């Protein structure tokens, strides 16, 4: 191995998959080999069987759908508010001076700590779940977008003004396109965090969703189901990540080497 030397595409896929295989093999060894009690950790086969019964008999697909809807809903709302605000903050320094201190403060407020309050305000319905994700995502996106837009290469902006661009042109045709790939990357990152918020929101006061299934399974000591739920979240995350990356490649071919 040479530092920073690239790896071929086939080797990359092979190595990536092999770690999954290694991980599952170790898990199987620990559980099927009898090193860990079944009460604490189900083996991979039980997990699969439990997962199958969840999907076929307990309507787990509906739970998955509900959770995805919540994540995407809260996240899209947050992005709709946060991206324009972040662009404004990054572009106009007085707006940044006005909002940045508050947003920096709000960013550290843990979304999960709002759940009791939100239940009080919005009940235990969908609105409360969306708000948890919204609060968890919106401040992060605002701040990161503002930093990205604020650090657009100064000389590109200068080139634009010497070509006759005015404020509107600079924002719409320099700052936004220049930071678009980085903003897409920020959204990808924050979507990942939104998944942790939704599960927390569903653990408390919920009657559907993956998080609700996991907390229900705890009462039954069904570790197989719990692990299946967690793995489903991981797989959905992986798929959404993949979709985001593919979309970025299509939307921003110029930003790739």
């Amino acid at each position, binding site marked *: 191995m040479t530092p920073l030397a690239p790896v071929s595409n086939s080797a990359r896929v092979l190595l990536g998959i092999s770690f999954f295989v290694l991980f599952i093999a170790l898990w199987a060894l620990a559980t099927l080999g009898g090193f860990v009690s079944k009460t604490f950790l189900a083996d991979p086969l039980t997990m699969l069987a439990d997962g199958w019964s969840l999907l076929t008999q307990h309507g787990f697909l509906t739970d998955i759908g509900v959770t995805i809807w919540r994540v995407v809903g809260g996240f899209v709302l947050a992005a709709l508010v946060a991206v324009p605000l972040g662009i404004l903050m990054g572009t106009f320094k007085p707006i940044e001076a006005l909002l940045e201190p508050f947003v920096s403060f709000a960013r550290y407020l843990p979304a999960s700590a709002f759940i009791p309050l939100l239940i009080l305000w919005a009940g235990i319905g969908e609105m409360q779940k969306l708000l948890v994700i919204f609060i968890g995502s919106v401040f992060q996106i605002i701040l990161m977008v503002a930093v990205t837009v604020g650090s657009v290469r100064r000389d590109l902006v200068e*080139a634009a003004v*010497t*070509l*006759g661009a005015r404020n509107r042109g600079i924002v719409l*045709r320099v700052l936004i396109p*220049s930071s678009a790939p980085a903003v897409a990357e920020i959204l990808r990152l924050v979507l990942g965090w939104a998944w942790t918020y939704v599960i927390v929101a569903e653990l408390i006061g919920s009657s559907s969703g993956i998080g609700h299934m996991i907390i229900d399974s705890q009462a039954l000591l069904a570790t197989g189901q719990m692990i299946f739920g967690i793995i489903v979240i991981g797989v959905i995350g992986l798929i959404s990540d993949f979709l985001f990356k593919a979309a970025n490649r299509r939307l921003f071919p*110029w930003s790739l*080497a």
Partner: protein
Amino acid sequence: MNKLVIENLSRVFPGVRGGEPTRALEPTSLAVAENDFVTILGPSGCGKSTLLRLVAGLDTPTAGRILLDGRPVTGPGADRGMVFQSYTLFPWLTIADNIAFGLRERGVAPAERDKAVEEWLGRIGLKGFERHYPKQLSGGMQQRTAIARALANDPAILLLDEPFGALDNQTRALMQELLLGIWERTHKTILFVTHDIEEAIFLASRVLVMSARPGRIKADVAVDLPHPRHYTVKTSPEFSALKARLTEEIRAEAVLAAAEH
């Protein structure tokens, strides 16, 4: 007739953390005639880029004023095209869209934009690259596009800040010929900043030598080499004489500048 008039223009940068303020440009006066190709030659840190940025409106003078076609310059505008040393093509736009950027900002109709793009692609020898992105092109090709982008906008004056500074010697020589060729055809008024003596002479009808910090113009040398200029002029006795003279002028400044750092 004077295209550009600079009157007692100066720029002092305030001191950082209570330090001494930097006098980047001493009060400087200068008149550039219409259709003139003027190069500003000086060691690094002499304020030549500051002067150019002031003309472009990217920086505000501490005192003095700039008149372009008799009208005072108050900020950046499409009437002063600029080519930078760094590669400033918009990476998300194709070469064609880069060239059309200024026209689009000024609301020129698409058909007319396409015509200008077509024309400039030909002039800079990049036909067939219109759909490429900047990073797919070499440094020389990118700077050619940057020149076309500035000129497609048809500015009253073209400002170039060491545009070939990052290029290798061979590419640089070809770029000089290309720019000179464009000037010989269009006679656009040009202000060109460089620290390369040969480049300053080869391109210019007039070379201004700037002194080390604080910057001011210490010599104003007319270059009477005939046009069209062929690259072989660089080996002519007249060229060598000019080069010897400017080398002396600039050397004293370089020594001063070096002693300061």
